């Protein structure tokens, strides 16, 4: 089934991945879109992706700020794996995963054993000496050495570029390299056999062919040649027209129309990562009509060796990054478990305190102890509720449940919720609500949680003060269309060196009272709304947290582009 992914590389939803199927996918700011992008530079109905005849096509829906692919303005564009779509300030990486199944690749390759009959033999070999100058090889060519050297450099440049391009799939990376290789060495078909990272097995991983080649015809790959290349670390050029004494009569390549083949090692920094195998055919009927046999040349083998080296380095780098991500993920999971255990233990400790007083009150018939104990139990019940909600909010990849809401009502609800926390302390909680706030589309539950976390921190910050004061203000800037909630307190403030870390997950300056989740959750909720949260704390003390996000309404006109790529003519 047709399947593709869009990975957000830049923008509000950075890091998110959407899988799309053959159904039409609409992109835009409006709530009815399949992929909703909360970006003020995106139109309500901005663009759509249609799938037909194996091709995904991006169509701009006459958006105000336009759609871009790889930096070029487009009206309609047939997407290919690796393309980068820009809509508003959001950049997404397109990957077609329809034909990316390893099993499908294996079906297109015939791995021939030594027992299979074939007639090809090695015509030449070339050691994979690093840094062998391609220009020198070109100088012995019949073609202009300057032109060949330039072509080779262009090819290697393009392959290097592909090797470092953003991708989330090794197969897609290698596929792009192999597609370039086909052109560079004028081959009919090509495949890469890549060593599995956890075993010594080398398996077909990607396959490519030039237009015009029968896509249903399986590509024969001689295991004899592959084993020779692996064992010797040499590039090999074979032909079925010659004899090579290094192979026994039973060994070598296939008939099946192969005329010539080249196989080179993918030699990485530390180990062999696989081989590249390309072939070229001259059909019998073509030769009978007097056509000249199509052949490879030695400089092409040199070029293919260089491509093999680049590909191996790309595989190594990809696996290194993958290992790094896995290690970081495991470390993050360990840190999350440790931190949550710590928080749950603190809450359990609080519950035990309350239970102890209730038990004592019951035994001694003292109602005041029972009430005091029950207050502690209830408070910790709220804490565990807050912890669970923060965990859920942070862990979920989610779209905010947007609904037309009044920000002042949300702030009033926050104020009501924190009232209970300050009854035992002299802290004053004040609201400074703007009278000019327009209704706006936002997730009221999410925004409430974001403000509540910040306001709770402010209350904690002034806990020991005799004149603690927390003010929650709302503002709207009609010029920038930004909504703001400003929470200020007159507590001791946050030292400058701690300010840059306070939004990091599990960072807390509140000791045993903090979970290190609250501000990270507030920041995530703001980012989901296309906004941000900032802190300012002067040395003299006091603190100001500002939550700001763009007002979203049903108004179809987005803001004008301020940093769009240079507009060009449609490319397709």
């Amino acid at each position, binding site marked *: 089934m047709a399947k593709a992914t869009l990975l957000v590389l830049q923008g509000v939803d950075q890091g998110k991945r959407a899988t799309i199927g053959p159904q039409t996918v609409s992109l835009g700011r409006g709530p009815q879109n399949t992929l909703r992008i909360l970006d003020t530079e995106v139109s309500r109905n901005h663009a759509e992706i249609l799938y037909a005849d194996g091709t995904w096509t991006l169509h701009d829906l006459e958006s105000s700020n336009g759609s871009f692919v790889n930096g070029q303005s487009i009206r309609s564009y047939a997407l290919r794996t690796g393309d980068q779509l820009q809509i508003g300030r959001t950049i997404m990486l397109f990957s077609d995963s329809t034909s990316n199944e390893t099993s499908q690749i294996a079906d297109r390759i015939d791995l021939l054993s030594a027992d299979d009959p074939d007639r090809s033999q090695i015509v030449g070999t070339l050691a994979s000496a690093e840094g062998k100058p391609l220009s020198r090889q070109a100088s012995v060519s019949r073609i202009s050495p300057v032109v060949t050297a330039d072509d080779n450099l262009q090819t290697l440049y393009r392959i290097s570029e592909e090797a470092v391009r953003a991708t989330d799939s090794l197969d897609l990376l290698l596929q792009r390299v192999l597609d370039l290789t086909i052109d560079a060495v004028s081959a009919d078909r090509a495949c890469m056999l890549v060593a599995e990272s956890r075993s010594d097995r080398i398996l077909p991983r990607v396959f490519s062919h030039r237009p015009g080649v029968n896509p249903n015809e399986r590509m024969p790959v001689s295991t004899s040649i592959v084993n020779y290349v692996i064992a010797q670390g040499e590039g090999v050029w074979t032909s079925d027209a010659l004899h090579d004494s290094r192979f026994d009569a039973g060994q070598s390549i296939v008939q099946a129309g192969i005329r010539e083949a080249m196989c080179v090692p993918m030699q990485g920094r530390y180990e062999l990562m696989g081989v590249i195998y390309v072939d070229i055919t001259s059909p019998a009927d073509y030769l009978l009509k007097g056509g000249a046999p199509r052949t490879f040349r030695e400089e092409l083998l040199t070029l293919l060796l260089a491509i093999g080296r680049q590909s191996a380095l790309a595989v190594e780098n990809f696996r290194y990054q993958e290992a790094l991500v896995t290690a970081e993920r495991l470390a993050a999971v360990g840190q999350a478990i440790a931190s949550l255990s710590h928080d749950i233990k*603190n809450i359990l*400790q609080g519950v035990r*305190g*309350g239970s*102890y007083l209730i038990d004592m009150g019951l035994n001694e018939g003292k109602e005041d102890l029972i009430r005091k104990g029950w207050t502690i139990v209830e408070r910790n019940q709220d804490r565990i509720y807050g912890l669970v909600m923060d965990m859920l909010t942070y862990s979920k990849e989610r779209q905010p449940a947007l609904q037309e809401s009044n920000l002042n009502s949300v702030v009033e609800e926050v104020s009501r919720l924190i009232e209970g926390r300050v009854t035992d302390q002299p802290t004053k909680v004040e609201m400074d609500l703007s009278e000019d706030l327009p209704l706006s589309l936002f997730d009221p539950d999410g925004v409430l949680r974001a403000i509540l976390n910040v306001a709770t921190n402010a209350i904690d910050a002034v806990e*020991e003060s005799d004149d603690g004061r927390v003010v929650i203000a709302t503002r709207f800037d009609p010029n920038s269309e930004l909504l703001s909630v400003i929470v200020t307190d007159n507590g001791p403030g946050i030292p400058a060196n701690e300010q840059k870390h306070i939004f990091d997950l599990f960072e807390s300056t509140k000791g*045993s009272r903090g979970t290190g989740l609250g501000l990270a959750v507030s920041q995530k909720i703001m980012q989901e709304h296309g906004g941000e949260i900032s802190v300012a704390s002067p040395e003299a003390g006091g603190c100001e947290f500002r939550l700001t996000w763009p007002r979203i309404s049903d108004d179809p006109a987005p803001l004008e582009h301020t940093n769009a790529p240079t507009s060009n003519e449609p490319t397709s």
Partner: protein
Amino acid sequence: MVNRTNVMLVDGLTETEEVLKAVLEPRGMLVTRVRSTHSTNPLVSHEAPSVVVLHESERLQGPSSQGLTSPAPWGNVPRVVIGHYHTHTSSTDRGCRYLSQPFQYAELVTAIESLLRSH
């Protein structure tokens, strides 16, 4: 003026302060709480405590309560150390009790009373 037995909490949960106040103050003791971050040496700025209850304040730093179980800056003041990781206190240090969180408050009250009796 009669000096009351002073139980001083350093850091830790509000609940610990609330429980100890509810249990010990009716018995004539004084329960105070200070933050170690607010004062380099709480003993300087507060009434001399009879017992100190210390909470391990290091967050996720591993068994780091050695600094808390060491005598300085508490001198010979008996102390209860509440930590997140179990550590063995010296058997010769009779002025120190160790509780691993989560603990039962009855254990804490017993530890405080035991230290007050023996000092």
